[in-house]
């Protein structure tokens, strides 16, 4: 189901789609809540208390909200990027590696400015490099797909491992701190190279505005530009590309560049705005999580950030669980995974129901 926006579909189809979507959503949430409750009960904790702690741990205070938004920013950036590749029908699993490469490229540039002079220049250059790094990493998968016929899922997965290898090698090798090499990452950046942030929420306004910009840019790109239209067309039916003289390969590469670019931007923000150094877990699996967000939001650019916010709350809120209830914090992962599985199951079930209905009608 592609996004149906008001101008593109007649009102009745639009209404039906909304009714279907809401019905599926309610059903999905019901399935997930009962499943997670079952898990919590089985692990011997009171379910209501668990949900309460997740809520309180994520939205209970300004600091915690700031924390949620810090997770939301890279998640939203990756989700926006993925909308381009999903539009044309590509599964850009490599988004995780693209975040890592963005972080690496940004760090590479920042290392020249460790004395703290010309900080603004180095920050801008780091962001440009980060975007380029992510885009480059995505382009490799794109070229393997368009030239070599390698499935982008396998290429992306392979490149994720390579990126993970490179970041570990850099942190424990060439970029290690003088005398010590540890999982805690490279040397801390000087204060001048940190993104400025609001101290009460430990939140960088620049990062937030970049994420908001990404949403708007993506919405405009997909809706009002030729590129967006062509991506949608090719995603709908690549076999008709010849009728409209569309260059399928070019648009595939373009979609990959957008996805990788946004992922690289997320990586750069992780370095300059969150950790202020390069750490092995710089991507924090936000790339993989963004794939789930995009799917769950039905590839809609406006629903995506909402789902991303919900996921960020789950992630941050579940940090409380080990302390409060002796539950493992991976419960958020269980909920997120269950959500996507349930959404896919509900979707598949509806398609099957419709097919059976059609067959009996015939």
């Amino acid at each position, binding site marked *: 189901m*592609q996004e149906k926006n008001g*101008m*593109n*579909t*007649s009102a009745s*189809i639009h209404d039906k789609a909304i009714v279907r979507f809401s019905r599926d959503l309610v059903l999905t949430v019901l399935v997930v809540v009962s499943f997670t409750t079952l898990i919590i009960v089985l692990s011997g904790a009171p379910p209501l208390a668990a949900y309460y702690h997740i809520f309180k741990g994520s939205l209970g205070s300004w600091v915690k909200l700031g924390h949620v938004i810090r997770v939301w920013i890279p998640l939203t950036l990756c989700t926006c990027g993925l909308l381009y590749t999903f539009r044309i029908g590509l599964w850009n699993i490599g988004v995780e590696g693209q975040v890592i490469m963005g972080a690496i490229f940004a760090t590479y540039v920042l290392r020249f400015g460790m004395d703290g002079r010309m900080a603004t220049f180095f920050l801008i250059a780091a962001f440009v490099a980060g975007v380029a790094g992510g885009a480059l990493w995505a382009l490799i998968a794109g070229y393997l797909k368009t030239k070599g016929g390698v499935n982008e899922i396998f290429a992306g997965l392979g490149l994720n491992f390579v990126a993970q290898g490179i970041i570990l090698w850099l942190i424990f090798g060439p970029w290690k701190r003088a005398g010590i090499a540890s999982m805690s990452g490279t040397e801390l950046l000087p204060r001048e190279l940190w993104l400025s942030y609001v101290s009460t929420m430990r939140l960088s306004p620049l990062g937030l505005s970049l994420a908001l910009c990404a949403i708007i840019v993506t919405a405009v790109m997909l809706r*009002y*530009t*030729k*590129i*967006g*239209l*062509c991506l*949608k*067309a090719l*995603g*709908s*039916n690549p*076999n*008709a590309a*010849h*009728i*409209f*003289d*569309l260059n399928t390969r070019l648009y595939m590469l373009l979609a990959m560049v957008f996805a990788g670019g946004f992922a690289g931007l997320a990586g750069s923000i992780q370095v300059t705005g969150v950790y202020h150094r390069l750490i092995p877990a710089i991507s924090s699996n936000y790339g993989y999580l963004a794939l789930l967000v995009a799917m769950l939001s039905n590839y809609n650019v406006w629903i995506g950030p909402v789902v991303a916010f919900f996921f960020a709350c789950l992630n941050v809120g579940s940090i409380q669980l080990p302390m409060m209830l002796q539950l493992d914090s991976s419960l958020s992962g269980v909920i997120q995974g269950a959500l996507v599985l349930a959404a896919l199951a509900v979707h598949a079930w509806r398609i099957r129901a419709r097919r059976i209905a059609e067959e009996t009608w*015939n």
Partner: protein
Amino acid sequence: MRIELRDMHKHYGSIKANNGINLTVEEGTIHGILGENGAGKSTLMKVLAGYITKTGGDIIIDGTVKDYHTPAEASIQGIGMLYQEPLDYPPLTVLENFMIGQAKGVSNQHSLFREKLEELIAHFNFTLDPDVIVKYLTVGERQQLEMLRLLSLGIEVLILDEPTTGISDLQKEALFNSLRKLASEGKSIILVSHKLKDSEALCDRVTVLRDGEVTGSMEKPYDANELLAMMFGEPPLPSTRSAVDYGETVLSMKNVSGLGERTGLSRCTIDIREGEMIGLAGLEGSGQGVFLRIAAGITKPTEGSLSFFGGNMIGKKLHAFKKEGVVFLPASRLEEGLMPDLSIQEHFALKEGGSSFFVKWDEARAESSQKTEKFRVKGTPDTIAEALSGGNQQRLMLSLLSKESTLLLLEQPTRGLDVESSNWVWWHLSKYCLRKTAVIFSSTDLDEIMSIADRILVFFDGRIIKDVQRDETDARELAEAIAGRV
């Protein structure tokens, strides 16, 4: 075994693929089922083979009514079918394929089945090697394998659906000999074909179907003219069309061959001039599709030369063909022609091309509402292509065509359309001819070709076996060519 089909019906919605067919196949005979495309031959045989469920009627085997619903149950009754596309496992060897469905239990029975297979191969003088991987076999060899497998399952009635399409003469000879041998051993053979020559050479008796009904049957020796009349009905009166002055040569092909469909296209030589309306006749999949796609620049020819207005086009990209004004409309509109999820307005925006970064939605909307009215597409600019009916999809595709095209290539442009829609399509296309555009269309309906085209090319087994002006031929001659007799 004696097979009797009584009052067989198979309906798809309002379409009656089989409408009350009666047919008897005697034991030890070869029975031919003749008919043109869509006559209902394959449907009838698939019902008999348990592949599809009948809507009504009885299957009577050796005097008793039998009821079965799957190919496996049919093979227990002793009925097996060789499909047009071989149903085997390409990565496995011939022997392994042969053993599938026969070998039971966990013990290794290779040597047992090897002996059995080699015996059968020798019995029919086939050339199969048990250790070759099936994907390296020719269509004819895969057919032999499938036939031997069915026989060793204990098949008494063997159905073959167009078995001679795409196989060599030598393999055809081997196939025919083996079928005669089987019949003499008491097996019943049913041969589905549109090729008169094959049926004449092989069958003891033929039954002709047209539009889902039996139009007649005949025993050896055959009167070809009478059979053709049963197959194609009475020849229609040719309609009169005002003569158009033809211009320069638009498209020129010399010895062009290409791959695709089952037959491919072999050594096609032809010149097409401005303003010509050319109909491609022949059984579906006899090379018309490959011809159109090569002319459109979508399929690359394997040999030969191709030029537009004298300029070489071999090795040129699709874009170069577009620039010459070549337009191709495929038969499968939603699969190859339109973007199912896109609205009418988006199709117009997509067609617009241009170099601007943003889509000019206002213009696209204005153009789409104007064109949908002019082309009588029943839908608003916001209707998505998938939601349109077949006729409206076809009109949408036509409305997207540029007026400046030099060569229109249309694959079955009226497939699935009602009479009124078809007439509209032809009326619209005739305007292109007056503007000196050359129009080439394929159709499975001979009447349609006779009434529309100025010039007719008949395809048979991947070759153009007839190239005539409409005024210089008649339905009988064309029907013979379609059935492979020139």
